[in-house]
């Protein structure tokens, strides 16, 4: 492609530099990987529990059903928790919060990080330096510490948790996006778009972004696993939202003292969070491999 050609054929200005097999090919390749299939299955099951599980909860989340920390309390599947509430019901009810918060905060972090990375890569020069060095500063703070400070000073509210988790995701997303975009901004079709007088937002959003979508998608999945883990850690440390509201992370903390006598209150949410994280991670891994073409030669 030359600039002249591009000028003659505007449609080509929206160039794609997808892997040879194309976008559909990536998806197929991704789904062809066992790790992706397992990952998707895990995510589907756990999202299913979180979303429709509440419909099947035999008791209310705060209902008293028997003596606290009794593994074999009558009429319960997994015994009772710290306050004598049904572990199984709270498990079914407790996934929504963490999942919702993780997804929303990842999306916000992804959006901001992508914009920062694209702008930095496209503009280069001083703005690039300012943006990326700022990202480095943010990057330097331990995530959990930052989140604890925010939650302690601003209060235990959902929006605080969402924003701070999103905030900790921004530098990483920005870095990945910039790295991927650097190779794109040099391409001829960008020059073509510039020559056509396309607006900067058009160039960033329509020309560059689609070409970094692959790495960004992988990063989104990775960030989601980190968000789940971070929100889980906050909840575990008692900085989650809502006193005694069913929540996987809080359940782990509350029921931990009875790990030896009534283990399910701790184990169920631990498995759930762990498997959810692993599942999302496997999907990210599969996507990454498919995009990079790592397993292309192997039959799947």
């Amino acid at each position, binding site marked *: 492609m030359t600039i002249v050609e591009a000028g003659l054929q505007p449609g080509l200005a929206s160039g794609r530099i997808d892997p040879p097999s194309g976008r559909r090919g990536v998806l197929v390749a991704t789904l062809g990987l066992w790790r992706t299939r397992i990952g998707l299955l895990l995510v589907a099951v756990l999202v299913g529990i979180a979303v429709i599980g509440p419909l099947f909860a035999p008791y209310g989340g705060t209902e008293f059903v028997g003596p*606290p920390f009794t593994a074999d309390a009558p009429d319960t599947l997994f015994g009772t928790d710290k*306050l004598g509430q049904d572990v199984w019901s709270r498990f079914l009810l407790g996934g929504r919060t963490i999942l919702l918060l993780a997804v929303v905060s990842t999306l916000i972090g992804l959006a901001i990080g992508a914009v920062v990375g694209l702008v930095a890569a496209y503009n280069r020069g001083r703005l690039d330096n300012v943006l990326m060095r700022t990202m480095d500063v943010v990057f330097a703070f331990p995530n959990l510490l930052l989140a604890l400070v925010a939650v302690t000073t601003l209060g235990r509210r959902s929006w605080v948790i969402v924003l701070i988790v999103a905030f900790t995701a921004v530098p990483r997303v920005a870095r990945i996006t910039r790295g991927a975009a650097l190779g794109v901004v040099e391409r001829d079709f960008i020059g073509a778009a510039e020559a056509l007088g396309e607006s900067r937002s058009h160039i960033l959003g329509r020309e560059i972004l689609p070409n970094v979508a692959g790495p960004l998608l992988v990063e989104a999945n990775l960030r989601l696993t980190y968000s789940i883990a971070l929100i889980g850690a906050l909840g575990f440390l008692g900085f989650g939202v809502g*006193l005694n509201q069913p929540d996987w992370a809080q359940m782990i903390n509350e029921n931990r003292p009875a790990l030896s006598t009534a283990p399910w209150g701790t184990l169920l949410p631990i498995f759930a969070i762990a498997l959810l994280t692993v599942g999302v991670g496997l999907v990210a891994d599969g996507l990454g491999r498919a995009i990079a073409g790592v397993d292309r030669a192997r039959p799947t």
Partner: protein
Amino acid sequence: MDNDRRRELWLPHAMSRRRLLAGTGAAVLFAACGGDDDSASPSTQGGGQPTGGSTGTAGGPATTSGGPATTSGGPATTSGGTPTSGGTLRVGLVGSTNDLIDGQYIVAKADQARLVSGWDPVVNYDTDFNISYEHSLAEEIETVAADNYVIRFKEGLEFHNGKPVTADDIIYSFRRRIDPKLNLAPGLAELLGPDGMTAIDDRTIEFQLLKPAVTFINGLAEYTTTIVPVDYARFDGDVSNQIGTGPFMLESFTPGTESVHVKNPNYWGSGLPLLDEVQIIDFADAQALTNALASGEVDAAVDIPFAQVSTLESDSNLRILESQAGNWLVITMAIDQAPFDDVRVRQAMRLIANREEMVERVLAGHGRVANDMYGVLDPCYPKDIPQREQDIEQAMALLADAGQEGLTIDLFAPDDTAGLAELIAVFADQAQAAGVTVKAQVLDGGTYWGDEYTKRTFATSFWSTRPYLIQVAAGSLKNATYPETHWPSPDSDFAETYDQAIAETDDSARCEIIAEMQQEEYDNGGNLIPFFYNLVDGHAANVKGFEARPNLLNLDHYGRGWKNIWFED
């Protein structure tokens, strides 16, 4: 400092309410996960008699559930074996680098245990919480008038170093207690001036109070009202000046780590103590402590989290020691703030509470239902006032009368006191049935006990066991130390009745006045007191001498300074 709950009326255990740093204290009673709660429940009085043959729970109402007072070394076992001498007892408790040793003052539970090892009280209480001279330095107290008392001490008392206890030491001890610079017992300082004591002979002292107050005797029964030698001062690195009259002498002490106490050869109790040495070892949290007990790293542990009790009970090498106590958690309603300025709304809240369920859920059964009145171990506690039960219908009717149906209200608890967050969560759950939306909010301890403490409309608190009148002065008068409910209302004569009671030297007449006061708080007060919780400790099966009985301090009043404790081979 207004956020400092270092209080009291001469009740020593002052425990600062804002339990500072590093979990100074101990009581992670309920569920281990309560954070670094600390400080203990300040208890007030002494515990039960060691002999007297009462099994376990003599004296108190039955435990609600779960409280089978599994004694170990109960009378049965004690008499089953012959006490033998010797051995080193390792006691574990939750402590911190803020631990201190002072023969007349404590902040955290760790300090209680160390104080009781080295210093005996002037008098104390028996299992029925009447004044007892056993285990005490005094032989007799004569009440000449409500403001005049004569105390005769036992003969032949000696300090750790063999020096006889003299009238000078006794007067010094009381002057030290009321010294405004040390501020060990501000309540006592209000009653007794530095010149209020006269030595009649070398072991008899006359006390002339500044005003009539029969609660003076309760102050004498505080375990921090001890006798120290002239010029005694708090531990400051040198063990040689930590001299008292108690069964064990301090040999070494590293705050936050451990203290070692050795047998006092000059102890006045004949043949006691039985052990050669006691080590009091600090742990960072209740979980670590419980693990240490289970693995045999310590022989006894103070405060077993309720959630762990059943696990430990199933271990044949361990014994759980559960004592009824008068410690309570409370939901407080400010009686002069809307909506609680209407007594019907206060009553509605009290009727919403399902107390049995609260005992089950918050205490895992390790406590007993309360009736919105405190001072349950006080001999004057009225037993004929009917138990308030949950009555949602009546609660809703009262709320409707008051124009408060569908009430939505914030209820606050601190995150540093085990049980309070759980209590408000359960109350919020129960309130739904009455159409009341309780927004349960847990605040960081520093914030909670800060400037807003005692100003909130709907909040929570915790108290230790105190005699009724002393508790009134602490929390239920306009000028109380911690006026949480802003009681009494201006049109009540509660304060005058209190003055009357405190000047009444006749026990039964005073009990009648107290019953009247209790009735008024029951009818109109701002306290929602759901339960009294038990003290639950653990020890190895071969440790003998601990008895489960109504008590004010853990581990059977720390085995009264460990003097009755022995190892079975």
